[in-house]
């Protein structure tokens, strides 16, 4: 765990101030799709300047630095308790330094804890894996976009959505319609088909760890991901809901088994300020690779 605090602090700083290259690439290309002189192009130009400026100033890209979600895959024998302790220290320090806003409120008293620590914050999801290295990833997910996430239980009579991929498609497109103007589009969707209400949402967030340009190994899901992006962009909602060509920048879909009685579609909406970063630590605790 040597240097872990400094490494995690740098992880938080980078995540908050710098969008990963794969995200910047799709945003930059989307900006060129909007009509010259349109409100949508105006919005995209301001978004791209903001991305550059935040990186240059090493300042939060958006003032809502969001929920702090760690995803850790660690080798056997990795001390999770020690990691959690150091991660909490790093989060408090990052808040004091202004990489993170004071963003954690006691749900009963309404009091802001002032250091982003409290029950559920930060959220750390551990998994064990074979190998000797630790894979540590962080997502900062803002409130505006988290508020427009949705979970559908199929069949859904209002949407005429059955328990099949066509029903899933109807549910996702409905979520895009409902989210318009909120959640700072253009957005990226993480979707889970199946699971229970809790595992479904978690798996939908895990989809947001995937690279923008990866290909889903399951052909039916790969086809659905592409279709959702094309269809959503035909809706004409556009950046910020101003109307325009880009409503979604991407869609990533995973599936979990379900109970025979349940069929959930869980959708996490990520805003354009798609802050995720991660690194690989070797067995002596050194960063050997940045992941995004």
């Amino acid at each position, binding site marked *: 765990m040597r240097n872990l605090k400094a490494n995690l602090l740098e992880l938080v700083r980078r995540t908050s101030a710098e969008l990963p290259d794969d995200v910047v690439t799709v945003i930059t290309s989307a900006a060129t799709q909007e009509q010259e002189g349109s*409100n949508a192009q*105006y*919005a995209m130009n*301001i*978004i791209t*300047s*903001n991305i550059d*400026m*935040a990186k240059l*100033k090493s*300042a*939060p*890209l*958006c*003032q*809502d630095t969001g929920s702090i979600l760690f995803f850790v895959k660690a080798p056997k024998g990795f001390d999770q308790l020690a990691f959690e302790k150091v991660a909490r220290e790093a989060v408090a320090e990052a808040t004091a330094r*202004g990489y993170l*806003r004071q963003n954690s409120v006691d749900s009963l008293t309404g009091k*802001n804890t002032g250091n982003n620590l409290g029950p559920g914050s930060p959220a750390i999801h551990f998994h064990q894996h074979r190998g000797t290295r630790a894979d540590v990833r962080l997502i900062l997910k*803002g409130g*505006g976009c988290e*508020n427009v996430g949705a979970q559908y239980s199929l069949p859904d009579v209002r949407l*005429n959505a059955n328990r099949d991929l066509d029903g899933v*498609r*109807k549910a996702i*497109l*409905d979520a895009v*319609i409902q989210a*318009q*103007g*909120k959640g*700072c589009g253009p957005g990226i969707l993480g979707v889970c088909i199946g699971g229970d209400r809790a595992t479904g949402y978690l798996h939908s967030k895990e989809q947001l760890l995937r690279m923008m340009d990866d290909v889903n190994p399951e052909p039916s899901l790969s086809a659905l991901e592409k279709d959702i992006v094309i*269809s959503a962009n*035909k*809706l*004409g*909602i*556009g950046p*910020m*809901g*101003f*109307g325009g060509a880009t409503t979604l920048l991407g869609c990533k879909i995973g599936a979990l088994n379900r109970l025979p009685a349940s069929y959930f579609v869980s959708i996490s909406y990520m*805003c*354009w*300020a798609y802050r995720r970063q991660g690194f690989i630590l070797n067995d002596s605790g050194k960063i050997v690779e940045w992941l995004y």
Partner: protein
Amino acid sequence: MIQLIEPYAEDKIRALKMGDMVHLSGLVYTGRDAVHKFLHEGGKPPVDLQNQIIYHCGPVVIKEKGKWVVKAAGPTTSAREEPYQGHIIEKFTIRAVIGKGGMGPRTLEACKKVGCVYLHAIGGAAQVLAECVTDVLGVSLEEFGSPEAIWAFRVKNFPAVVTMDAHGNSLHAAVLEQSKEQLKQLV
């Protein structure tokens, strides 16, 4: 690009149309949930809001060498103020409301009646918008907490889009309707 410069006279505001892109320069007052509830319940505003602009924003402002410095100043979701906004626009003759996500029919109605517009700022653009704040003139109602207080900012070339005008037009309503129509073709 339309330059919207203080003072915010009624005819200037009524001349704005849905879809106009503006650069705003002049005074704006921040106000979010606590301020709206306070004013709605009859609280006396500590600043003169007549012919002024309210910005839905919980900024990050810190003191550096005895001077206020704005570290982040993006818009917050306006929909939460819908129960109060129409009344506040009418009561204080507000000339513009800045925020993100748009507002509902009651606010639109008040805009028409009073001569007020909704200016949509770019959500998440905290750094670009912080750069537009050239001066912090003061803060009041700080007891609500720093992000919930009324900050008086002087802004220069603050970028926004008129998404609700003083003639009853709402871009939000128009895009919603059109996207629902499109969806019918797709499912």
